């Protein structure tokens, strides 16, 4: 039925457009879905067969908007009269197995020109409650580096730490990213979408983005006025964890809109359990709160965000050791030397982090083609690590071994301009300031301050089947370490760094619907504080770390080719990449241990070499029959130290995943029920340099996971509730993972029953 229309006279140039709208999984037609065209104010609704006919359209390109309650909105580029009949598949919000339709992907190529892998809200819902790194593991090519308990760091194709940038919205999270046991300080409950950005688009984010950018975005604001929210409740059995998060949002106004949003989350977990014993002292608590507000119109918008994140994380007691003798004894034992009954209590050693982030953004639509954005962000990251009680001096009792506070301020000015229907330019300036204060008993990195000035620009050309992006960024960084005293001697440092980041990405959708992406990038990063000036015991692994103040910046060249194709009920994605590094910084063990009054400690020194990291990530999806989906993923990485002709340390082992899912028909009040069985197969990392590690990589393993869930309409007047059940490590398998820092001492956690409830308000 047409809600008001007007007709144009030129009949010979008018075309009739046929659209059919169906559910992406069941292929059932969706009736009364809304359809509109961006150039016209009309709204159409599909009939019982899911069909809409749009009459009297002039030739040209249009953007079609399709929406239906409970489904993801879809935008589609129409080319009249080249194609006059379209079938549009909408993805249910509550059940979203795949990362995006190929058709929608093609649109992403046109409108965003970014090479990105994305997880959207519904997919996140099923895995919500895990920390960021665990969530990201669902994107192909991303693994997690674990420290038993709640800490996990994302590893993108072998790179992590200072080679990855993590963003909360438009703010770079600045903390002590150099630590292998320092996880990103972010509340995973706020994530509405999580993307991994690589290629030319990553250039915008600065030097440390050579491995990629992880962008966690909160929910976009409601478009219409009103109030909404959500309550998340979770229970996890392995470490008897409970978590809850409440989000409320209210938008007012019509022409000028304003609104607020608040989200509060809390999480508490006790010791984790392996199939055979308790991992003593691995509990944690996490509390977070976020408050956002905005005021704006179609032309301008001012948005403020204040978020606070706090965590207290116990560190596996059995892993905090004295010296080489203690370490050898722990390595020889098959299980941790200290195993106590389950408790929620967090004892020494433990970590405590508080992170406060404030972001203020002003965006202004100068004219139809130009948009300006100004932003200011300020964050404080306060990190303390307390060791198993070792202090003799009573006056120093209760002080942290590691006590670092880093304050980061950032100003950014960005302009975006679109013209000619095919061009986009983004240019900006960035000024960042950092100050770090060291106050702990154990010296690892010094007090420092730094200034970073940058200018970047990205140019993109796109049409309906291809896009070409070129990104360029120049950074100048000044690092100052004021004089400090260590073991009776004085030290002071001042360093200057500058460099260019460049990237070019070409995306092409061929006639036969193959999507190719070719990306070439050159990136650099200055050495991190710990790589330059470390000198001390790193308790986590009874090792003594020594920095090299003469390190120079790393530079890497990356080449990547991705290919995607859908054919009937098959989908294939392949990603081939190679990265060559000059001056790759890493830790090398010294031939002789460091002697101290505590005994001998294995010593590691930061040094540089040339390196190569290359690999393949592939995904295969098949829908054998309606409602069924099979998915297989493969991941292989090759890392080599080119100068020493040996394998690079800590490259993820080859892995593959297979999963089978079925979407049941809705039954009475239960909508969209599904079940999924997943398996993960990780090989033994057989490429390793024999003297770089305390122990050989662990054996290969296989893990199984069961996911089930459905939407439940408790009350027809309310929005449906979403219930998900996940069973991780279904068979309670004993295993150790190469990327886990605690593989030297313990097995990984065993079976975990997880119940997740999402109640929309």
């Amino acid at each position, binding site marked *: 039925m047409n809600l008001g229309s007007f007709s144009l006279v030129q009949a010979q140039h008018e075309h009739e457009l046929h659209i059919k709208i169906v559910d992406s999984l069941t292929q059932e037609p969706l009736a009364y879905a809304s359809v509109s065209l961006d150039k016209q104010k009309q709204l159409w609704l599909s009939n019982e067969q899911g069909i809409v006919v749009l009459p009297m359209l002039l030739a040209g390109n249009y953007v079609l908007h399709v929406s239906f309650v409970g489904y993801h909105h879809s935008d589609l580029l129409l080319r009249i009269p080249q194609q006059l009949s379209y079938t549009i598949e909408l993805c249910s919000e509550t059940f979203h197995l795949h990362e995006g339709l190929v058709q929608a992907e093609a649109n992403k190529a046109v409108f965003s020109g970014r090479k990105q892998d994305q997880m959207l809200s519904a997919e996140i819902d099923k895995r919500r409650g895990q920390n960021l790194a665990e969530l990201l593991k669902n994107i192909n090519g991303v693994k997690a580096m674990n420290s038993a308990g709640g800490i996990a760091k994302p590893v993108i194709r072998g790179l992590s730490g200072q080679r990855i940038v993590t963003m909360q919205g438009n703010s770079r999270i600045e903390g002590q990213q150099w630590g292998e046991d320092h996880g990103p300080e972010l509340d995973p409950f706020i994530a509405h979408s999580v993307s991994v950005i690589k290629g030319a688009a990553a250039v915008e984010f600065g030097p440390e983005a050579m491995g990629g950018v992880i962008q966690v975005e909160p929910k976009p604001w409601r478009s219409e006025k009103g109030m909404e929210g959500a309550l998340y409740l979770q229970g996890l059995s392995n470490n008897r964890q409970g978590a809850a998060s409440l989000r409320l949002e209210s938008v*007012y106004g019509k022409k000028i809109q304003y609104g607020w949003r608040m989200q509060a989350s809390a999480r508490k977990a006790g010791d984790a359990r392996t199939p055979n014993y308790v991992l003593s002292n691995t509990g944690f608590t996490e509390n977070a709160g976020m408050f956002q507000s905005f005021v704006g119109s179609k032309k301008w918008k001012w948005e403020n965000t204040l978020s606070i994140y706090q965590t207290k994380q116990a560190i596996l*007691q059995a892993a905090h050791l004295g010296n080489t003798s*203690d370490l050898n004894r722990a390595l020889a034992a098959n299980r941790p030397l*200290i195993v106590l009954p389950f408790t929620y209590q967090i004892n020494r050693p433990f970590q405590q982090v508080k992170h406060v982030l404030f972001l203020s953004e002003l965006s202004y639509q100068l004219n139809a083609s130009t948009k300006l954005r100004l932003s200011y962000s300020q964050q404080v990251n306060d990190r303390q690590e307390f060791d198993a*009680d070792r202090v003799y001096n*009573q006056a120093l009792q209760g002080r942290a071994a590691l006590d670092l*506070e880093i304050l980061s301020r950032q100003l950014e000015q960005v302009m975006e301009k679109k013209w000619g229907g095919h061009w986009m330019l983004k240019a900006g300036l960035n000024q960042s300031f950092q100050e770090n204060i060291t106050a702990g008993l154990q010296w690892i990195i010094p007090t420092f301050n730094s200034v970073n000035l940058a200018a970047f620009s990205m140019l993109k050309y796109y049409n309906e089947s291809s896009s070409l992006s070129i990104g360029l960024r120049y950074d100048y960084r000044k690092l100052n370490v004021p004089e400090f005293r260590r073991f009776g001697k004085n030290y002071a440092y001042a360093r200057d760094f500058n460099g260019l980041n460049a990237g070019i990405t070409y995306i092409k959708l061929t006639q036969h619907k193959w999507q190719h992406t070719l990306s070439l990038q050159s990136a650099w990063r200055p050495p991190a504080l710990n790589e330059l000036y470390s000198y001390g015991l790193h308790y986590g692994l009874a090792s003594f770390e020594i920095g090299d103040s003469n390190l120079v910046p790393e530079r890497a060249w990356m080449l990547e080719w991705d290919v995607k194709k859908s054919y009937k009920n098959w989908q294939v994605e392949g990603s081939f990449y190679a990265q060559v590094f000059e001056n790759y910084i890493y830790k090398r063990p010294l031939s002789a241990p460091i002697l101290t009054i505590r005994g001998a400690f294995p010593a590691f020194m930061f040094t540089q070499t040339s390196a190569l990291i290359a690999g393949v990530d592939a995904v295969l999806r098949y829908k054998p029959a309606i409602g069924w989906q099979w998915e297989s993923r493969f991941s292989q990485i090759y890392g080599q130290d080119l100068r020493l002709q040996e394998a690079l340390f800590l490259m993820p082992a080859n892995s593959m995943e297979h999963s089978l899912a079925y979407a049941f028909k809705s039954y009475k009040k239960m909508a969209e029920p599904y079940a999924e069985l997943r398996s993960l197969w990780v090989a033994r990392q057989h490429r390793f340099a024999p003297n770089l590690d305390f122990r050989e990589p662990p054996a290969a393993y296989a893990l199984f996971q069961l996911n089930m869930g459905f939407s439940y309409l408790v009350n027809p007047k309310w929005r449906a509730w979403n219930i998900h059940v996940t069973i991780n490590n279904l068979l309670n398998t004993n295993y150790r993972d190469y990327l886990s820092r605690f593989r030297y001492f313990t097995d990984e956690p065993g079976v975990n029953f997880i119940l997740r409830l999402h109640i929309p308000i």
Partner: protein
Amino acid sequence: MKNIIKNNKLRFFTLLLAGIFMLGTTACSKHDDHDDHDDHDHENELITTIRLHLIETGTTDTVSYAWKQVGGPGTAIVVDSMVLKQGKVYEAFTEVLDESKTPVKNITIEIGNAANFHRFIYTSTISSLILQVLDFDTQTPAMELGLKFRITTPDVMESGNLKCVLKHYTSSDPKTNGINAGSSDIEVQFPLFVN
């Protein structure tokens, strides 16, 4: 912009935003209590010296042997060689110091105060050398502490070393867990000669 001034609700809201902006920029400033740590010499805890005072039983002769690393980890170590007489019994007292500070910090007292969580373990490569700990802590049943011990030398000439280990325990890994429990705060070796 005009609309904001007219509409009361909107005006309130914009002021709220401005207020949050002000709050945000001040809320995230660093804590002031860290400032006083910048200027002076960092009070880093360090054990630099372990000194053994030996008294031959039946005499008042005291000999001292020290293991020293004053510069901190990785720097030069100075160790005295122990030269003992055959067939004698010595009473030994152990002293633990931080000689990098002025005045010298005596850590022995702190160890004594936390006796239930510390233990010295003495071993030697000379199998005929007998070592016996003479002092105990205050728990029930009492366990060895080791600030005071006895050395009984053999009747023949021997050479080897004396290893001194100071173990540190916690409530979750107590002394009762055995000789391999705890973590080592000191692990040093003295060359030892029996003449």
